[in-house]
């Protein structure tokens, strides 16, 4: 596997050359959203300059070209995650909508009081709240696989929670706080033995490593385009074709119907049954450019580069005093996310200081409030990398942390 030329990759992302507060930007908030390569920005522009039309209707040339471009990306997504057919790919607004779609359309008519939905303690709110809503409306019960202090899942803990009452397991493939990659394959096998259906939240994993739904054996997978160099407003739900066939629609409207009477309607085939209304056509087309960009670099090469950088960052973090890390220190089954706190300093204060140095990180609860409570902190700082980040940028982060510590250690002059 050839090593990636990171400096040349950086040139593909126009925003990386901008300044923030007089310093060159160091963008380390990639778990929130990644920046966009020129190819994606141009694809949006080309779509609106050349092909814009509504899809799946109208017989004019533009409508035909737009439809073709949109559907081609569906096939591209299927290939990207090694799905058996493009019919298993539903376009949504984001991973959150994908999970809500599945929770509602699969779960509402299937779950009975006492059925169990199994999650982990480290789910993003988007893979927690939809299941709370579903549990509330069906009488199903939520159960949680505990995670270790480093964000690992022990399979014994999985076995302790799964039972014949488990109807659905929804877990993250990679934690947005700890960066840990879960043993999804083993968990899926165990869940399937209990007859449960498994949805994976792939929002953090799919952008950063090779993911094959065939190899994982998951029944559904949700992820967002904007975390993988694509535009905002596009998400993907992969689900087994037979599940999609049997599921109720999610939203009603145009596009998702076969025939409509005044008081009833029949549904379009999958996946269009789940795509009511005009979708984000331009966004989906530009997402295709993002996927092509990722494929050109190669997901294995991206993973290798990000792992190397994360290992370097962990080494630099280990040199710091007065800093607490929350994820694993070792690199096994770990992605490019580092959550940390500086002693005596709220992450928002740290975030403001780093921003003044041009360094963008996330500070807050990372949409994982139950996990923050478990860790006993109101919030953490989080640095998350993409393939375009460099060791020099990690150094800028570390130096900015040291500078902030120095500022807060100084004794303010007593006034009055």
């Amino acid at each position, binding site marked *: 596997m050839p090593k990636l030329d990171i400096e040349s990759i950086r040139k593909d992302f126009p925003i990386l050359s901008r300044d923030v507060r007089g310093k060159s930007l160091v963008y380390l908030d990639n778990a929130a959203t990644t920046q966009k390569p020129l190819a994606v920005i141009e694809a949006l522009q080309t779509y609106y300059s050349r092909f814009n039309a509504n899809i799946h209707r109208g017989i004019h040339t533009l409508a035909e070209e737009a439809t073709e471009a949109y559907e081609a990306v569906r096939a591209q997504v299927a290939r990207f995650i090694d799905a058996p057919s493009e019919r298993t790919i539903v376009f949504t607004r984001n991973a959150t909508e994908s999970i809500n779609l599945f929770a509602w359309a699969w779960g509402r008519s299937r779950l009975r009081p006492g059925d169990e939905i199994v999650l982990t303690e480290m789910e993003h709110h988007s893979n927690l709240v939809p299941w709370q809503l579903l549990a509330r409306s069906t009488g199903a019960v939520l159960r949680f696989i505990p995670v270790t202090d480093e964000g690992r899942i022990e399979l014994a803990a999985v076995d302790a929670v799964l039972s014949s009452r488990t109807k659905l397991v929804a877990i993250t493939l990679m934690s947005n706080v700890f960066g840990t990659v879960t043993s999804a394959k083993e968990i899926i096998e165990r869940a399937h033995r209990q007859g449960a259906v498994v949805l994976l939240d792939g929002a953090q994993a799919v952008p950063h490593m090779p993911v094959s739904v065939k190899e994982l054996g998951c029944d559904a997978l949700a992820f967002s385009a904007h975390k993988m160099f694509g535009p905002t407003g596009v998400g993907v739900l992969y689900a087994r074709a037979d599940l999609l066939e049997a599921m109720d629609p999610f939203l009603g409207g145009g596009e998702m119907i076969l025939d409509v009477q005044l008081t009833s309607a029949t549904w379009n085939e999958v996946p269009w049954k789940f795509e009511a209304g005009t979708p984000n056509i331009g966004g989906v087309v530009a997402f295709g450019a993002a996927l092509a960009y990722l494929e050109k670099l190669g997901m294995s090469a991206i993973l290798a580069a990000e792992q190397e950088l994360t290992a370097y960052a962990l080494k630099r973090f280990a040199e710091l005093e007065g800093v607490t890390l929350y994820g694993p220190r070792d690199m096994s089954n770990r992605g490019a996310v580092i959550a940390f706190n500086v002693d005596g300093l709220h992450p928002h*204060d740290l975030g403001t200081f780093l921003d003044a140095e041009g360094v963008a990180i996330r500070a807050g609860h990372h949409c994982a409030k139950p996990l923050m409570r478990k860790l006993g902190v109101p919030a953490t700082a989080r640095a998350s990398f993409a393939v375009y980040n460099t060791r020099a940028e990690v150094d800028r982060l570390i130096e900015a942390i040291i500078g902030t510590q120095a500022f807060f250690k100084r004794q303010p002059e007593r006034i009055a």
Partner: protein
Amino acid sequence: MIDQLGDLYRDVILEHFQRPVRKGQLADASIKVTGANPLCGDELTYHLAVQGGRIERIRFSGTGCAISQAAASMLADQLEGKTLAEAAKLIAALKAIMQSEKPADEVDLGDLEALEGVRKFPVRVKCAALSWNVIEQGMAQAGK
């Protein structure tokens, strides 16, 4: 870095963050009120002992960033001994200052003056504002 941020994190603010005044609880509080900024997790609880329309004693507790905790300390310090009407005027003045407006009434801000620098950092205004929002909520409850 320090040049740019000295205006936000003035010495008075650091002083109140590191050594807050009027921190604690009141067993005889007539108003107990808690508020939070849900997006960042800052939390504040104020205990006020109000007698005859005057804040005789005030204590606060909470967790959060330096700006939110320093503002809570400075506001508590400034409010103790004030009437509720004076407190309302002080809060109105602070709100005006955050929007770069001139306060309607001339009020003595004391250490709170140091918060003027916050308005240059719009994302941090809500950190400072938590303190007076919680107090306002408490006064509204008391008025009912």
